[in-house]
């Protein structure tokens, strides 16, 4: 692991309303490049909310967040979207594959949106990613023609499509059976350990968390000691 890739300072998220609800409060966190980090905690503790803040999907009400040394608060909605597209990848509990698109087409979506590769190069990269995850035979299948584990692996391939610096995974094994869960865990672990990518995982599974370099526990929106 090398320098800090993501730094949170007093990160706070409060939902406005008649009775404001604070989801995450005063989070200070340094995440190193290539770190495999687990965020755990009871249901409703604010794990996913923290992940969304770290992944620039949500904007903090207080504190600041630095990605690769850059302040993210002034990026604006499109700037944040561009940063997510080029530097971040997401895997969710549900695979969220677009049902009308085949596996390879799902992986192609972020590549084509970024537009840095020619159509042939993009297709080659999408197929290689699927192949790396053992899905070469499923590449042209629609999501409903694949198992839950296969679909989740396609979602991981899609998250890796633009070679992101950080992968955020929100309960990526929550909907999977034991075997598929093991495969997904191994892939994410491999991404961190072998490929040197930063992987941040929200999980309820203590055995999965135990495989990570560090565990951050959130209770009532705060980091537990």
């Amino acid at each position, binding site marked *: 692991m090398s320098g800090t890739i993501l730094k949170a300072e007093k990160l706070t998220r409060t939902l406005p309303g008649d009775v404001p609800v604070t989801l995450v409060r005063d989070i200070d966190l340094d995440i190193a490049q290539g770190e495999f980090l687990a965020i755990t905690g009871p249901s409703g503790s604010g794990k*996913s*909310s923290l992940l*969304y803040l770290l*992944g620039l*999907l*949500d904007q903090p009400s207080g504190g600041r967040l630095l990605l690769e040394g850059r302040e993210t608060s002034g990026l604006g*909605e*499109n700037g944040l*979207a*561009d*940063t*997510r*597209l*080029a530097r*971040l990848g*997401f895997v*969710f*509990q*549900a695979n*969220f594959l*677009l*049902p*009308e*698109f085949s596996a390879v087409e799902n992986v192609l*979506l*972020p590549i*084509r*949106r*970024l*537009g840095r590769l020619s159509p042939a190069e993009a297709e080659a990269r999408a197929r290689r990613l699927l192949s790396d995850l053992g899905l070469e035979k499923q590449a042209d299948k629609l999501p409903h023609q694949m198992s839950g584990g296969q679909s989740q692996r396609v979602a991981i391939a*899609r998250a890796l499509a633009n070679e992101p610096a950080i992968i955020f995974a*929100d*309960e990526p094994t*929550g*909907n999977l059976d034991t075997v598929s869960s093991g495969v997904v865990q191994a892939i994410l672990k491999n991404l961190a350990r072998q490929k040197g990518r930063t992987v941040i995982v929200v999980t309820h599974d203590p055995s999965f968390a135990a495989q990570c370099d560090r565990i951050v526990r959130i209770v009532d929106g705060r980091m537990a000691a």
Partner: protein
Amino acid sequence: MMPVLTGIALRHLLARKRQTLISLLGIVLGTGFFLGISAMMQGSENDFIHRLIDNSPHITIEDEFRNPRLQPVAQLNPGAVIQMHRVKPETETRGIRNYLQALDYLHAIPGVAASPMLQGQGLVSFAGKDEALSLNGMIPKDIDTVSTIGTYMTDGTIKDLEGNPDGIIIGSELARVLSLERGESITVSATTGQMHSFKIVGIFHTGRASFDEGQVFLALKRVQALLDRPNRANQIIVKLNDPYDARDLALRIEDRLKYKSVSWQEASEDIMSTLALRNIIMYSVVSAVLLVAAFGIYNVISTVVMEKQRDIAILKSMGFHAGDIQTIFLTEGVLLGALGCALGLPLGTAIMFGLGQLVFKFPGTSQLTPMPIDWGWQQFAVAGGFAFVAAIGAAWLPARKAALVKPVDILRGAGA
């Protein structure tokens, strides 16, 4: 990037073939009927105006004044209340004074043809039958320049009137009613009591029965003699190269000659207003058809947006902009609108062709008239453009809604 967004839009529509087809059908039928009805209404309006312009003088200068001439004392005291007793109107032969000078002025205006005319009432008696006539005294060589009557000649020509000062051109209905033929003579008596025998040198047929029965054309000099109004004309008929200049030119002429000059637009103002009102009603009705079709598109795209909240959230989390999401759903409207136009315009063309085959015999005419259809590109542009705008408008609201989706709101509730 556009192909990505278009690809997503296309997949959304293809995934709901039945709904898409129904909304598409709405646009196709709406565009087709819009085009068909609009072309028919515009065609009939154009035909009407065309006939009006062709068959009526573009400007008619009459032997009367728009406002009564003021007494000198009234001119000297404008605004004063003046009562005058025993004013005796000047007795004079009615008609346009110095009409030859007026003609010189008119002929000096580029693009203007003008000819004097003396109109009066007469009676023809033949074979025990009497027919009231409207006598149109004109300079024979000018008739073709200011009137289209020459194009309706079925027997003889206008030129025959030039060579025969005692000639008369009558309508086909008069000829039929009185069993007259070209070459026969008839005696015309005027309201002055004078009578004269004329030889029929030509017969015209306009298709308007009352005109064909009641109007006759003669040499100006003969009508002046019959009506006892020598060297007088009670109208000057003006034809213009550009009939749409008539309103402005009529004002100029009236300002110069002082006689009432009526353009064809002024003479037909009530009809033109009726046509405008008819257009408003027609466009309201056919637009309503397309609006209903647009609701079909709104329904489809709105349903897609509702169903695709998760997809929208994941696309945004991937890095698609709000504008990209809006573009996807607007593209769906554009695709439906474009395809609707592409299929609706040929349908409309077929409707136009079908309507063009219909023929009618209108009351007062003696010939069959085909349904006039306007084949101008403007009809296609308006129908296609309206359908397209309706489709995009219908897509805009759900597209805007989709763009405003916050991915976190969806992802928070979509864990399972």
